[in-house]
């Protein structure tokens, strides 16, 4: 019987280091443009609301604080498309690399 052609590879793989990265003890780096948790720069924001108007997932609402208006991003609804970053005329939303966003309560997912 002819040996299955994969057998040689299986044999050599037995002696190679496993490719599994033992997360969470070791983390792989993400790409420089990875779409993770947003950063809202309140000192640049003028409260125009473009981010909220364009959000495909309706995840951004505007909150009035004193005489200013700022965006709140509900990460539970957010799809991390970053249209908000693209459309903001002042560059007040920046992308971040944090993707470890699991939490015990929905309230924790509101980003200011």
């Amino acid at each position, binding site marked *: 019987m002819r040996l299955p052609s994969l057998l040689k590879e299986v044999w050599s793989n037995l002696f190679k280091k496993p490719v599994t990265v033992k997360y969470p003890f070791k983390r792989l780096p993400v790409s420089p443009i990875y779409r993770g948790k947003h950063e809202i720069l309140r000192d640049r924001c003028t409260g*125009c*609301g473009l981010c*909220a108007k*364009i959000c495909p997932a309706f995840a951004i609402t505007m909150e009035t604080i004193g005489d200013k208006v700022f965006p709140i991003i509900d990460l539970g609804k957010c799809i991390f498309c970053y249209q908000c970053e693209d459309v903001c*005329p002042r560059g007040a939303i920046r992308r971040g690399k944090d993707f470890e966003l699991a939490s015990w309560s929905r309230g924790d997912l509101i980003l200011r």
Partner: protein
Amino acid sequence: MINVERIETQVGGLAEPKRFRDLMADVISKGICSKCGMCVSSCQVHALVMTDEGPKRVGPCRQCEACYYGCPRSPAFSGELLEASLSSENKDEVLGRYIKIVSARTTRDDVRARAQDGGVVTTLLIYAFEKGLIDGVIVASKSPIEAWKPVPTVALTASEALEAAGTKYSNSPNLVALKDAIYCYELNRVCVVGVPCQVAAARNVKVQPKAATKIGDKIAFIIGLFCMESFPHAKLVEYLLSHDIDISKVSKFDIKEGKFRVYIEGSEALSVPIKDLKDYANEYCHVCRDLTSLYADVSVGAIGSQHGWSTVIIRTNEGAKLFEGAVQEGYLEVKDIGSGVDVLRKIAKRKASKK
């Protein structure tokens, strides 16, 4: 109900946000829009386009106020805010803030052949490209279809910048090319070359928090030109035809010592007092008080220097680094401006105090 209506009720709870129609009412309909193009480039929903009659809205306005606060002629514009952002120590009543004023000219033959005066602007651009200081520049290049009609262009290489050398006396909405540079080409270190209204808009978008500062962040240098007024291209063609000159034959224009001169194949074909063209100038130029691009990093022009040299006003540390670098690397040669600065001051005062 989608986002827009919902958010409008939330944001509109504060002071009524400025929309394009406010820009239309406060600037464009009043006839003071200089068609610099900043509103078109500021709009992040791409609702505006530039036409010969000025900016026009082709999409829904989402009331972000970026066009209104980006406009150098809107009531929101503050010259003091811009001046405060310049790092220069000296201040002159009409020449504005500056670090130093000199005369300079290019050392390169390729630039000299195409230069208007000293070839300083083009040389600075070539230097900046070659040293990797910029990845693109907004220039007015010549239309391949209509002779001498300026077209706002993004030049991506030193040779493309060289192609665009030479002054065009018709207005060019240069800043619409900022959208091409930053949105379409995704450049990050753009140089803006423009006349005083465009320079004011470019500086404004860097320092006015309510303007589209995302664009301002990507502007690396602002090079300003000296400007008295501009002429609509059609009127210029008409004027030349009245003197039996076909604009497509013209090799160069210049305005020096109060004379408007037209050259065909290098030799002078027409020389008239500039006063003769008073009625051909753009109406909206009359409100401008800025001859020397008060808010640029470096301002360049012919007035105050000898033939073949350019007057250079260095206004900021960034401008100084760029200019001194070009001088040190041998791209430019410099000399003292001497009494030329008084000539410059006189003409700048004339523009600043005209009725």
